[in-house]
Every structure is written in C-alpha cells, then in structure tokens.
C-alpha cells in the first residue's frame, strides 16, 4: 500500500509528510540548542567578576566560517530553485559547492580545535604562569603531549613511565601576571619562545573541554553544531550522488528531498549565526 501524501501535498494542510516531519524535528532542535544557550547564559552570568575569557578564539577564522556557511545556504537554495526550473546540471553544481563549503567549515573548525589542544597553561613551582602553544616536549612521557590532553598536578618525577628530570617543555607564548590577565589577554600581544625545565612544572593543562566552564560550553556547543554539519553534508551528498537516479523516475519526490535537506542545512546555518557572536565576539 502506498503511503499517502509522501509526494503530493495533503489538500487541507498543503504540505507533504516529510515537510511536516522536518519542521517538527527542527522544533525539537530549537529546544535542544535553546537549552544549551541557557546553560551558556547561566555559566557566563554566574562567572566570578573578570574571570570569563575574552579573545581566546580567532575572530577571523570564526568570521570566515560564518561566511562559508552563509554562502553554502545560498547555494543550497539555488540548487533547489534550479531543480524547480528543471536544470539538473546546475543543481549538481550548486550542491557540489555546498559540499565543498561543508568540508571547508569542518577543516577550519579542526584547525581551531587543534589550536586549543596544543595550547597550554603551565604553572611553575615558583608560582609564575606561562601560557602558550606547545612547540616541543622533550620528555619520556608515554603519550605525545601534542595530541593527548596532559593534566599534571604536582611535580613531574623522573624515571619509569613519567617525564625525566632533564626534560624540558618549549612553548611559544607569554607570561601573564595573574589569572585575570590570562582570561583577558590583550589583543595582538607579543609572544616569545619559553623553555621550561619539566622539573619546575607544578601544574599544566591544555585548553580542552576540561579546562574551565568556558571551554566546556565552547566545545559542547560547537561540537554539537559540527555534528549537525556532518549529518547535513552526508544527507546532501546521498541525495546528490547515490540517490540522484530518483530524479528520472520521480522528480517531484526528488525536489521534495532536496527541499527538506535544505531546510535542515539552513537551520544549521541559523544556529551558527548566533554561536559566532556569542562565543567569539562577546
């Protein structure tokens, strides 16, 4: 038995099934991201005075990603319009560009994430704080400090599976005076090569999600958003490639699929439009 209104709209609502379905799904997505935005607001408002970070993210990378997503939203809607005009080749071109935009967005996001994973705050035995990007770690630690989160609390001891006393850590960074300076580094501050003997390290931690509430909410929000980008790109690719034969057999069904996947993609763009200023600029 054929499912009614799978392609043709239902006369009383004027909508086909998948369109109602995607809007109901997007409604649930609004509540999901809404709850996380509320968490962000609570964390930020309740943060102690002067201890909410600023300028921790690269504004220009964030802005580039915003432009990339906006551009991809334009190509998605142009792809749909091309199909409505019966221009399948143009549709293929526009959706191909959309997929390239999705890959570009994810590549830039990966660069940003890597930057946080090699960025370390190091507290020395004498109380000084060094902050910067890891260049080199001459130690006998069993894992690579460049790739793995390293949390050290207490002095690193030599021998066995831990660092040797002769090891040293090399950062490209700066010496903030205190925690407050670390939270609000001056824009474009000078960096220098910092060499720290491992035996002088009291505590060190990278800027992964475990670092503080800001990095926790940053990775949660952007990570969930990136998963949506991946999911959207997979669906768009499936319709664009393996499922393209449906266009010959049932073009209306095909156009509906493109429209529904496009609605999801625009929602992903919409979420980023709010994430960008909230996380990068404010």
């Amino acid at each position, binding site marked *: 038995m054929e499912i009614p209104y799978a392609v043709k709209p239902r006369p009383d609502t004027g909508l086909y099934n998948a369109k109602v379905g995607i809007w109901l799904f997007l*409604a649930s997505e609004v*509540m999901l991201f809404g709850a996380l935005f509320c968490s962000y607001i609570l964390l930020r408002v309740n943060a102690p005075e002067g201890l909410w970070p600023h300028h921790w993210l690269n504004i220009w990378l964030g802005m580039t990603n*915003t432009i990339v997503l906006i551009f991809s939203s*334009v190509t998605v809607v142009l792809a749909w319009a091309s199909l*409505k005009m*019966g221009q399948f080749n143009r549709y293929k071109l526009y959706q191909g560009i959309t997929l390239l935009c999705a890959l570009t967005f994810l590549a830039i996001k990966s660069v940003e994430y890597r930057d946080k994973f090699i960025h370390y705050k190091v507290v020395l035995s004498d109380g000084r704080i060094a902050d910067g990007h890891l260049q080199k770690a001459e130690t006998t630690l069993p894992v690579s400090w460049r790739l793995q989160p390293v949390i050290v609390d207490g002095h690193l001891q030599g021998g066995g599976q831990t660092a040797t006393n002769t090891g040293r850590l090399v950062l490209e960074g700066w010496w903030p005076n205190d925690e407050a300076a670390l939270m609000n580094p001056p824009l474009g501050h000078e960096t220098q090569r910092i060499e720290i003997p491992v035996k002088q390290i009291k505590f060190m931690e990278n800027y992964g999600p475990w670092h503080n509430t800001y990095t926790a909410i940053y990775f949660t929000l952007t990570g969930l958003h990136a998963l949506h980008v991946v999911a959207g790109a997979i669906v768009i690719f499936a319709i664009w490639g393996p499922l393209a034969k449906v266009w010959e057999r049932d073009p209306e069904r095909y156009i509906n699929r493109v429209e529904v996947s496009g609605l999801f993609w625009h929602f992903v763009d919409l979420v980023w439009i709010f994430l960008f200023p909230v996380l990068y600029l404010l």
Partner: protein
Amino acid sequence: MSNPPSSSPALRVDEQTVEEMRHHVRRYLIVGVALAIGTGLTVWASLFNFGSREINIVVALMIASCKGCLVAGFFMHLISERKMIYSVLAVTAFFFAALMYLTVSSMAHENLVHIR
C-alpha cells in the same frame, strides 16, 4: 555511474514557474549579500566600544537576530509558509520563551533560595 539527464521527462516546467523561480533566485542572492554584510557589521560592532559591555552584547544579538530572520524568512520560506508550520513554530516559540524566562528569572536575586 551515468548521470541522469539534465531535465527529467516526468517533470513539466511551465514558463510561469521558471519566471517565478528567477525572481526568487534574485531575492536569494540579495539576502546572501545582506547576510555577509551583517556578518562584517557584527565583527565591527564587537570591536567598537558602545560605552558598556551590555550594550555591545545587545547590539551583537540584535544583528544576529536580523540575520536569523533573513535566513528563516527567505531561505526557509517562512514568509510564505502554510498555517500548520506556523502552528508548530508558535508552540516551539512558547516553550523556547518559557525556557528563557525560567533561565533569566532563576538569576534574579530575590528568587534565590539560600540553603545554609
């Protein structure tokens, strides 16, 4: 894998539809440019000192809301959508507003319950 033909034999496209779509395409391009300008404006506003951080936050969120309305209105076709979609979104807006209200009201000092 061979590509399907450019125009599907099963799809009938009349001149009126094509003309209508061309009009839409022009509109989408204008909205795209407006969104890009809005992004630049957001960055500029964040670097400009409006006097207090609160005002900067309000300005940034207002620009983001305008951009969001453009995406939802034109790209997602909400300016000319069916009544049922509006009903779904009205329910969503109600619960979203309730969520925000609960969040903001929980931060008001008079509502805090101190457990000693």
